[in-house]
């Protein structure tokens, strides 16, 4: 009985420790933002790692997500709504939701795992301590470039993913569902709002910050050798995916019910 209380206590303590640690890291990152020009070289390198390194993954994911959303939408509307609205359904769902969220999930899994593994290995081999001993702030040198790279590259990848997903949906509509390209694009244009694209990109920026922070935070708290690196990598992927999904709900509420609300 006492053991159960102890286990629950440890879980609760760990939770608050992680939340507190994340906020401290956010504070430290904000504290060294003014030194960003000094880390531009590392930031550009990380942008390449996050952006170019994720392109194949985003390509495959987006094309098939677009294709399946086209098939699903056609199945759901076939008896009730004219097929001219197929492009509207695909476009709306991709731009508002599937593009930003799925890009964040697949890129987040790859990027946060790689960051946590890299920084975790640096931590257990004392490279982070060595950096501290050289009077170089590891948050400024390692975390800031990664978070900024994710913040910038996630919206870029999301635009790329949106385009490919719509293209994938259009090709499937044309080939498998007999909906012409002209009909599909007409539907796409019908209810196209720039606000939708902006809100999708704002979400992508927030997801980018979450992915960068979770990768770095979990890397920095690694201890215990190879097993510890594995554990941190797993925590980075799980925490970034969960936080992306939770944040998505709150952002959707703020963006679509308050900021871009088009109701009466």
């Amino acid at each position, binding site marked *: 009985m006492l053991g159960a209380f102890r286990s629950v206590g440890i879980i609760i303590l760990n939770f608050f420790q992680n939340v507190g640690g994340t906020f401290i890291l956010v504070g430290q990152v904000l504290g060294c933002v003014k030194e960003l020009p000094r880390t531009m070289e590392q930031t550009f390198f990380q942008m390449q790692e996050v952006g170019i390194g994720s392109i194949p993954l985003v390509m495959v994911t987006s094309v098939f997500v677009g294709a399946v959303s086209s098939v699903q939408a056609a199945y759901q509307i076939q008896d009730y709504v004219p097929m001219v609205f197929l492009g509207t359904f695909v476009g709306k769902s991709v731009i508002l939701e599937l593009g930003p969220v799925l890009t964040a999930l697949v890129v987040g899994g790859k990027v946060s795992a790689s960051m946590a593994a890299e920084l975790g290995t640096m931590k257990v081999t004392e490279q982070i301590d*060595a950096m501290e001993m*050289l009077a170089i*702030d590891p948050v400024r040198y390692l975390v800031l470039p990664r978070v900024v790279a994710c913040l910038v590259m996630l919206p870029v990848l999301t635009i790329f993913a949106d385009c490919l997903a719509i293209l994938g949906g259009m090709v499937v509509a044309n080939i498998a569902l007999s909906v012409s390209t002209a009909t599909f694009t007409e539907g796409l244009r019908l209810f196209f709002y720039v606000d939708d694209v902006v809100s999708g990109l704002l979400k992508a920026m927030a997801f980018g910050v979450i992915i960068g922070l979770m990768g770095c935070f979990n890397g920095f708290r690694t201890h215990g050798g190879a097993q510890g690196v594995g554990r941190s990598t797993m925590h980075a992927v799980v925490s970034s995916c969960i936080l992306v999904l939770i944040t998505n709900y709150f952002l959707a509420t703020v963006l679509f019910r308050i900021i871009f609300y088009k109701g009466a």
Partner: protein
Amino acid sequence: MIHIACRNVWKRFVTNSVLRGVDLIVNPGETLVIIGQSGCGKSVLLKHLVGLVDPDAGNIYVDGEDITQYRRKKLFEMRMRFGMVFQGAALFDSLTVGENVGFALREHTDKTDEEIAEICERKLRMVGLDGVQNKAPSELSGGMKKRVGFARAIALDPECVLYDEPTTGLDPIMADVINNLMIKLKKELELTSVVVTHDLASAYRVGDRIAMLHEGKIIFTGTPDEVRRTDNEVVQQFIKGSAEGPIEAGFE
């Protein structure tokens, strides 16, 4: 020259009390060697001296100032006066040897790339390495990595160098090379040094004084001769390397 003092330093990791009231003084210009069993907290104590680990209680003074009260910026300023050689060298594996040695120079000085390259070459020559600037750390042997770690530690001309198990994992000849190097650097750069080791040959060779850490406390401090002649049973058991005695070896 730098003066370091620990006053009643306590540190606990979850349920393991590693340091239980450590008092220690490092005099300017001396080489103090801290010996003790594996896992007794020697490296943790070393990291306390430069604020890499915060004590749960107690104070650490560098030139009379309590560094446990320092904010990060002040801590970084203080660390510029120190160099540290890590057990596994801790070289940045994404950088070349030259970039490792010149890393702090690039960050903290306005020197040109040519000047930095010249300083790196000089520091590497001091540790007996030449022509390795463009190699990756993964291409080096254990002894070479350690020496690159030495070169990186002295790149900013520190007043004090901390050595964490400098001879561990090296063959006896390379261990002697490293010992000679520590003595040479101390003389040439007039360094204060703190060495953590359980290699007694190295401790006798490089140490002006030796302190033994046991069960979280410094139980003995003296010159190498005093260590050899002490009647302290714990120290005697340790230097004789005997399984019999007051130190429990961990199994029957």
